[in-house]
């Protein structure tokens, strides 16, 4: 038997030939000391890898990120379920069902079918059926208050009540939720194409799988979101349109610049309003707006001003960590920033190119939700985190889209897993491990 077979198994358990596998099994079953040796070597192998492989250093964050993604999906499903109460369940659902879970969809389906026959039939296929009492349909000069399921026709304008969403169900399982007080126009509705003009407010969509050549398109004055099979939300006001994709991908076209981008799950895009812009949070030329510390105590972060910045002076950060400590530098601007229309935060980094990982957090404060006005907002703000790696010596621009930030604390059911961004009261930067120094310059919020 190859004397290295135990070590080879440690390096890769699938590397051994069948004959060697049999020999190894026989060996460890008959020689407990060899079995003990192998198990301990496997433990050391894991410990060394976890300690030295950079990508394995953020296990807890990876768990939280997966939980956040799952939590986001659950929250969306809950919202949609609540909004579509009374309509058939989506075809995409695959979980086992008990008999009573069919009852509501069947009853709603019966209502839909009833609506299909009793209401004026649309000459075109896949018509949307509005099933929200209180919604208002404008058809030509007629203004119709919806009280029973109502089939929309091309050209109809639909307004949701001020206090609830209006739900439109399509025969293929697609569900659109028009936010309270929002309105839309059904521009096209054929067997393969559905075009909707969102004139104001918010539209959330859960779209059934589209076949080749099918199209569902949501347009605003500024933009067009063409669905590729997904769940997404579009928010529009007179000046600006914002798209948030929860699942799948959406082709988003800025109708002014005629540029199209594919927006994936967890990402957002915007069009209209002012074009690309930058909001300076701190020029990093003074330490006034910065605080330093360590969580827990034990690490050290020293801040100073370095004359050789990317532009003017910069903030030099020298840090020393001990296992389990995270020394941090926190920018605390005099007032919070409304970043809802922005793309992300960015800053210039003078790095070392040593592959060290850093975490960046934004402190997202929403007094109305927390209900704890008067307290230090930074103390009760929710923290959302993302990471970057120092891969290049010298200055480079680090851009961190808000879409990449996930809740730092474990999302409990019902908790926010995405930042609201209405009042960002701080930005924190800290190394994940080791000792060293970096420099920061021009901390900004950017929009594009």
């Amino acid at each position, binding site marked *: 038997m190859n004397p*290295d077979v135990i*070590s080879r*198994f*440690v*390096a*890769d*358990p*699938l590397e*051994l030939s*069948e004959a060697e*596998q049999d020999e*190894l*099994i026989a060996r*460890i*079953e008959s020689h*407990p000391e060899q*079995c*003990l*040796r*192998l*198990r*301990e*070597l*496997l*433990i*050391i*192998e*894991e*410990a*060394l*890898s*976890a*300690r*030295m*492989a*950079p*990508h*394995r250093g953020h*296990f*807890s964050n*990876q*768990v939280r990120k*997966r*939980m956040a993604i*799952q939590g986001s999906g659950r929250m969306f499903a809950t919202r949609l379920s609540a909004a579509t109460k009374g309509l058939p369940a989506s075809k995409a659902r695959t979980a086992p069902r008990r008999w009573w879970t069919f009852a509501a969809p069947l009853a709603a389906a019966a209502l839909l079918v009833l609506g299909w026959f009793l209401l004026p039939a649309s000459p075109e296929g896949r018509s949307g059926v509005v099933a929200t009492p209180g919604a208002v349909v404008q058809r030509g000069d007629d203004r119709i208050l919806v009280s029973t399921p109502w089939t929309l026709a091309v050209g109809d304008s639909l307004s949701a009540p001020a206090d609830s969403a209006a739900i439109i169900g399509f025969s293929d399982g697609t569900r659109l939720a028009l936010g309270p007080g929002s309105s839309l126009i059904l521009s096209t509705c054929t067997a393969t194409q559905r075009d909707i003009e969102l004139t104001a407010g918010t539209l959330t969509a859960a779209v059934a799988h589209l076949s080749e050549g099918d199209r569902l398109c949501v347009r605003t004055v500024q933009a067009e979101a063409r669905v590729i099979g997904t769940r997404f939300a579009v928010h529009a006001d007179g000046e600006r349109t914002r798209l948030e994709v929860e699942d799948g991908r959406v082709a988003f076209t800025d109708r002014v610049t005629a540029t199209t981008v594919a927006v994936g799950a967890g990402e957002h895009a915007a069009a209209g309003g002012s074009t690309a812009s930058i909001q300076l949070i701190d020029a990093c030329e003074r330490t006034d707006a910065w605080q330093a510390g360590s969580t827990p105590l034990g690490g050290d972060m020293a801040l100073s001003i370095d004359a050789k910045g990317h532009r003017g002076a910069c903030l030099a950060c020298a840090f020393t960590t001990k*296992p389990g400590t995270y020394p941090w530098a926190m920018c605390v601007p005099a007032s919070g920033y409304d970043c809802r229309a922005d793309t992300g935060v960015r800053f210039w980094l003078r790095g070392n190119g040593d592959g060290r990982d850093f975490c960046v957090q934004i402190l997202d404060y929403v007094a109305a939700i927390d209900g704890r006005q008067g307290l230090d907002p930074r103390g009760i703000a929710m923290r959302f985190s993302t990471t970057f790696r120092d891969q290049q010596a010298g200055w480079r621009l680090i851009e961190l889209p808000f879409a990449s930030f996930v809740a730092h*604390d*474990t999302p*409990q059911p019902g908790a926010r897993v995405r930042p609201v961004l209405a009042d960002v009261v701080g930005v924190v930067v800290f190394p994940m491990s080791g000792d060293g120094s970096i420099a920061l310059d021009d901390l900004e919020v950017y929009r594009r």
Partner: protein
Amino acid sequence: MTTFDTILHETERALRLYLASLGVRLTDVDDLAQDVYLDFYQHQEDLPVDVEPIRWLKGMAKHKAYDHFRRLAQRSGFLQRMATALERQQPRFGCGDGCGDGSDDMLDALERCLTKLPDDQRDLLARYYGDADEDTSVARAPSAARMSVMRLREALRHCIVGRISGAVP
């Protein structure tokens, strides 16, 4: 921190060591461990009040590992038999099946043992385990380097056992 956060923070190292000690490949250890924590998070109410979380998590991890081995169809028989055989031997460090979270002592000992290594050997380990670039990774290249790492692993094992048993201060 929430209860879950605390448990995650306090047990993740031990859980990953446990999965590795059953013969789960390093490339799969984190994925399986994440699955364990996600399942645990969704069913936290199932945790009996009189059971240490790490023990509960290890039970879940063991099932995950065996499921994982079954999915590796061609090698599943071998890996399952290996895991069963390995579980019969209680390691002297790094937290086996019957202990609580005892990984801290082992990791402290590992740190101390690493500091005793010459710089070039520490560099070799750092490149072997730390290089994410597969094209340049020492792990995939010269067998001489792999042999050196094997010897270092053995040396570290003896060093850790010595420190944990108190033979080495």
